[in-house]
């Protein structure tokens, strides 16, 4: 260490440390005060059950006179807002006796887009080795692939577990490969355009930015409804990592966001790919106004945004429900689905975009808070590194 005075972290970084401490506490609380209730759904599936016995992770269910009624297994799979836990009951003849959703953390909007009860009813009575695992059967409306996939994979994992332990039959698990499609390709192209634009600057940067954002608006927005949301970030922070084989896009988006923030000092997701940012810019171009917001109002709104982001994260982590954190109006615009509050927010933000430049990005977007956290931490670590040399 050098002989100079020890450099203190700036006030904003101290606030980041304190917020991180409380959020970590909320996560620990959420994790330790959380145990799914499996008994009630097992009783629903096997109404004659008198006694249950857990052996090697599956429930052996007995009725009157110690007669074995069947088995129940519960396994989870990653959905949109976190893991989804489904319990499957199998009778002694090897048929599905019932399926229950024990836990799900999807936003109500996404949950309404899947047909979980219909799928559950359809597979009741099927032999465990002849269940239809096509997630398309579960999707009611396009855009809920992750949720539908989680339902199917959770059922598959539960059935496989019961079949292996109760019937000593190893069910084949189909090999799964990474799903790399248009969305993933577009994300890579957008970040590449961002890097080129950032390096070149000038009018090319402006043109690339417009082109990138318009493509982002169409593909990440209206086509796939896949912008980065606070719910997705909270799911990662909670340790609920989606399967990268069918959720590669969110990994690419978050990696792009983090890496460009660190290496370029400005995240290129917001500048080149964010569909909601693009929507505001388009509306701003229609309006043609660029009113200046006084600096005190900017500072005030930044403070309000940070408090809102912290509160949403804290609530979601303590309740272990990442979807609770999502207050963005993205789904209202891109999927025409949202709560009344989200519709109201959408109305306010896009109307304000006619007058002020990208109001959501400047005053409400949680990504700006995360970007500042990354940049402040990087700056401080860099300063400390400089001290040590």
């Amino acid at each position, binding site marked *: 260490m050098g002989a100079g005075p020890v450099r203190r972290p700036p006030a904003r970084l101290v606030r980041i440390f304190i917020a991180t401490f409380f959020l970590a506490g909320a996560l620990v609380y959420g994790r330790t005060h959380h145990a799914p209730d499996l008994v009630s759904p097992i009783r629903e599936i096997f109404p004659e059950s008198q006694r249950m016995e857990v052996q090697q992770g599956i429930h052996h269910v007995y009725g009157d006179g110690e007669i074995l009624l069947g088995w129940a297994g519960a396994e989870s799979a990653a959905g949109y807002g976190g893991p989804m836990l489904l319990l499957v009951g199998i009778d002694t003849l090897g048929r599905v006796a019932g399926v229950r959703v024990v836990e799900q953390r999807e936003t109500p909007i996404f949950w309404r887009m899947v047909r979980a009860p219909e799928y559950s009813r359809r597979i009741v009575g099927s032999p465990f080795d002849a269940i239809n695992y096509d997630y398309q059967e579960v999707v009611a409306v396009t855009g809920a692939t992750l949720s539908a996939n989680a339902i199917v994979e959770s059922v598959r994992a539960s059935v496989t577990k019961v079949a292996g332990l109760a019937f000593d039959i190893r069910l084949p698990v189909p090999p799964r490969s990474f799903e790399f499609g248009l969305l993933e390709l577009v994300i890579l192209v957008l970040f590449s355009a961002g890097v080129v634009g950032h390096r070149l600057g000038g009018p090319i940067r402006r043109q690339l930015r417009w082109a990138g954002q318009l493509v982002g608006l169409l593909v990440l927005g209206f086509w796939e409804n896949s912008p980065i949301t606070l719910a997705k970030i909270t799911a990662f922070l909670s340790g609920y990592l989606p399967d990268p084989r069918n959720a590669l896009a969110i990994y690419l988006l978050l990696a792009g966001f983090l890496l460009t923030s660190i290496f370029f000092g400005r995240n290129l997701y917001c500048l080149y790919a964010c569909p909601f940012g693009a929507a505001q810019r388009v*509306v701003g171009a*229609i*309006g*043609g106004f660029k009113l200046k917001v006084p600096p005190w109002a900017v500072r005030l709104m930044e403070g309000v945004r940070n408090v809102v982001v912290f509160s949403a994260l804290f609530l979601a982590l303590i309740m272990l429900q990442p979807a609770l954190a999502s207050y963005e109006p993205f789904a*209202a615009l891109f999927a*025409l689905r*949202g709560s*009344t509050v989200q*519709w*109201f927010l*959408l*109305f306010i933000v*896009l*109307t304000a975009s*006619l007058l002020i430049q990208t109001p959501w990005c400047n005053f409400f977007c949680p990504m700006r808070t995360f970007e500042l956290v990354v940049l402040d931490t990087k700056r401080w670590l860099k300063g400390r590194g400089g001290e040590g040399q």
Partner: protein
Amino acid sequence: MQIFNSGLFWFVEGILFVVVIMAVRAWAADRGLPMPVWKWLLFLLWLGLAGFTIAFVGTSFGEGESVAGTRGGFLFGLVTIIAGVGIWRLLLAGPVSDGEDAVSEA
């Protein structure tokens, strides 16, 4: 309500519609703005959209569908406002001829 089903309501509605169109015509003439057919078409389309928005919200609430009325109001209201601003800017586009203002200033 009974008033909305009466002939009087639609009579007043028709008068208002004509007054709005005449007002736009007078406003354009006043500012010396050329009003070709495409501008009139755009304006009438927007007027229809605005009328639809008001009717959607009104009928939804009238039928006790307050959630649909609120959300539809936000959605169609937003589209109406943005389209209105865009069309307003288009109406102002084009060479300004000598209108009444120009005459009075002279």
